[in-house]
């Protein structure tokens, strides 16, 4: 990817849109973060990656399929709990876990979340718009309260504690690179999906469901498939979350957590592939910095979101893309220079 970077950003832009250059720049930063002194930024970056993956999985529903889900955190939480439970089962009495067992426990997250998404999605895809949002919210809250109140199975309000990864991955940098590798792999798969014929069917469903149906597309089946895929990726993000924060709690399934994915996608730019990841960079970094100085984090992020909604519709990446397009003017082929210039920033 770096060779590509050197030879021609314009080609990168032409092929992948703004997501190409943005992904290269982000990758560059993500690879170098552990060089910064102290563990703090590495830990923050791990969080950025995990929540970024979560936000991007949400965007498979919103940005590509055009449906807003307010219950997406349920799958993040299901993945986290599945991993946490397998993790706890594998743990020795002394609280240690071997590396293969640990990696195996991570694998438990996505299928569990996908299964949950299959059941929830079966009902949700029958609706669209505000009703889709409400039904996903209701399912999310139902799952939240089940996890919250089923003490014998989930430990209820206490959550599951003591998810200490093997010694090697207790090192923040090692866990970070593990996360980075998994997230990159996940994003490559996600990219393949969104650029496949299936991905274009999603865009069709977003733009005009009726036309898609006339074209012979099984609308509900495709929506359900996408719902399950998005759920599985959210579950993967959840799986990474437990051992990262050493615990899981019911709050991971709540609607406020779903809201974070919505924030990130819209801040970064829901119309682009890497937009939600950029949103996670902005949100999580801001949170890390702001909470150093004040406990009034909600007030700060609320104000930021307010300003973005009022003045940067389409999110940060959306705004940049718009600028590039307007600078290019009507001539479709003339603007490669301008594109590369803006993409660099």
């Amino acid at each position: 990817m770096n060779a590509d970077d050197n030879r021609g950003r314009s080609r990168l832009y032409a092929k992948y849109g703004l997501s190409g250059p943005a992904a290269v720049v982000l990758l560059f930063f993500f690879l170098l973060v552990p060089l910064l002194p102290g563990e703090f930024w590495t830990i923050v970056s791990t969080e950025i990656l995990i929540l970024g993956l979560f936000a991007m999985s949400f965007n498979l529903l919103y940005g590509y399929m055009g449906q807003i889900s307010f219950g997406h955190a349920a799958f993040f939480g299901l993945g986290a709990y599945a991993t946490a439970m397998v993790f706890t089962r594998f743990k020795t009495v002394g609280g240690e876990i071997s590396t293969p067992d640990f990696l195996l426990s991570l694998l438990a997250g996505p299928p569990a979340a996908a299964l949950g998404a299959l059941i929830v999605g079966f009902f949700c895809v029958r609706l669209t718009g505000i009703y889709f949002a409400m039904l996903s919210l209701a399912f999310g809250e139902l799952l939240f309260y089940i996890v919250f109140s089923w003490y014998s199975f989930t430990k209820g309000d206490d959550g599951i504690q003591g998810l200490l990864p093997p010694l090697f991955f207790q090192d923040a940098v090692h866990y970070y690179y593990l996360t980075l590798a998994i997230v990159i792999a996940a994003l490559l798969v996600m990219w393949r999906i969104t650029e496949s014929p299936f991905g274009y069917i999603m865009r069709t469903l977003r733009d005009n469901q009726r036309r898609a149906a006339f074209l012979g597309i099984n609308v509900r089946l495709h929506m359900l498939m996408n719902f399950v895929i998005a759920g599985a990726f959210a579950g993967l993000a959840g799986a990474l979350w437990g051992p990262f924060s050493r615990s899981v709690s019911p709050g991971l399934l709540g609607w406020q957590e779903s809201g974070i994915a919505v924030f990130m996608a819209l801040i970064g730019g829901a119309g682009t592939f890497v937009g939600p990841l950029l949103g996670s960079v902005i949100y999580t970094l801001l949170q890390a910095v702001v909470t150093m100085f004040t406990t009034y984090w909600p007030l700060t992020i609320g104000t930021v979101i307010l300003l973005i909604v009022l003045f940067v519709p389409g999110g940060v990446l959306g705004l940049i893309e718009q600028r590039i397009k307007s600078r290019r003017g009507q001539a479709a082929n003339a603007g490669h220079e301008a594109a590369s210039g803006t993409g660099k920033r």
Partner: protein
Amino acid sequence: MDLSAFTIQLFSGLSRAMVLFLLSAGLSLIFGVMNILNFAHATLWLAGGYVTYSMFDFMSGRFGASPWLLLPAILGATAVMTAAGFALERFLIRRTYDRELPEQLLLTFALVLIIGDLIKLVWGVENRRISLGIEPIEMLDTFVNPYHFVIIATGVAVAAGLWFFLHRTRFGKIVRAAVYSRSMVSALGIPIPAIYAGVFALGVGLAAFAGGVFLPLLPMSLGVDHDIIVQCFAVVVIGGFGSMLGTFVAAVIVGVVYSFSILFWPDGALAMVFLIVILVLIWRPWGLFGTELRS
């Protein structure tokens, strides 16, 4: 279940239903007329409760404690919050009418965070409550706080008032017409922006009123708005967007189901509520009393 437990749960359920109704009525009107799902509605309710508390506290210090001071405190807080709602619509919400639904959601979402934190900034983290010092009365095998009757009567009265307003007054009829067709109302020469501002202010006023009325029964504490708003969504969805009767019936269903579920599944009472929401959305997405047309 014996009679005393039944009585207690029935009254607390009905009281809860009245508060949910006052909130959801505004939520439903705002959504019906303006097509905006106001996530900040319960946060404004909370703010109304805090303002009522402060006014009550101030007047008690000034004129000596009396339960009757709650009345002017509630009215004062309602007036303040109605004005705040008007200003909110004028300066913020209005800018997003031509935007997509998610962006409007994001804006009201941001307001949840901002207003919630402003409450923390002004009133701090400790809970605020008003004790009226009313003796519980004995009835149906148990003791009941008579304030439950006040809340239930108030709720029913406001419901009747809202019905009268929507069906018998000119402004109310315009509001109902706007739910069906904004463009038609606009074409008849009625200024839509004024209707929007009025409806939003009315909704916020109702929410603040509910916050004040509820104060002697439950303390106001930070973060309750997050629980209440999803319950209001539940009410609006069950009843059907834009239907006042539906909202009332749904509020009673949610309030009573919640308070009886709490007896045998304390942590999961709301799970029952969301189960109902799911069943309604699957069976009749437009709600029990809504019309299919608006879906």
